[in-house]
């Protein structure tokens, strides 16, 4: 079975631009969570969706938004990019939401 997949693998954006990251969960998993991981730190929770409903939101500005589609895939959008948004963005899927399995991440660089 395929694991969690994320696209793109890497991307470079300029300050002020907008970015969309994509995630496909493990087949059968209905929950998707997004995390931001800065070098040297643990993942920081951004959003969790379950059955297409937002179930949790971390302490991130409104520039960050997400949604989950009927096939349980998800997108994370970040508007008005700042240099500090440079990070590894991780997606995790879960059957229930607790036991989470991570994808390889998208490395975002903002210049």
């Amino acid at each position, binding site marked *: 079975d395929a694991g*969690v997949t994320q696209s793109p693998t890497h991307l470079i954006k300029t300050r002020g631009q907008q970015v969309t990251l994509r995630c496909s969960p493990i087949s059968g998993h209905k929950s998707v969570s997004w995390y931001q991981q800065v070098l040297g730190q*643990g993942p920081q929770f951004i959003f969790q969706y379950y059955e297409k409903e937002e179930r949790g939101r971390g302490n991130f500005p409104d520039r960050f938004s997400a949604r989950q589609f009927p096939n349980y895939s998800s997108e994370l959008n970040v508007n008005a990019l700042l240099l500090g948004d440079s990070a590894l963005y991780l997606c995790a899927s879960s059957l229930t939401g607790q036991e989470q399995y991570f994808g390889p991440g998208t490395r975002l660089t903002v210049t």
Partner: protein
Amino acid sequence: GESVGLHLPTLSVQEGDNSIINCAYSNSASDYFIWYKQESGKGPQFIIDIRSNMDKRQGQRVTVLLNKTVKHLSLQIAATQPGDSAVYFCAETPGGSYIPTFGRGTSLIVHP
């Protein structure tokens, strides 16, 4: 505030040794804990989990111990191999929540 932390940022061991990675948590409401392994350039990989109604859980070459009295979690890796070299994170989830909090991580270095 509530936090999850690790005692040692770096742990160096010889191949074949047993490794112990420690984690302290302060949220007494946490009832679910997971250990993750993250290799360079990859996403965290689920290793083993434990619920607060258990003290110990074993997997393949790994054992997680939970001491709720002192709010301490440990990951034991038996016969450590070079492939075990990675950063290890513990994560705690409060009861009724689906949102884990991760600690900073411990870097395990295994010398051949």
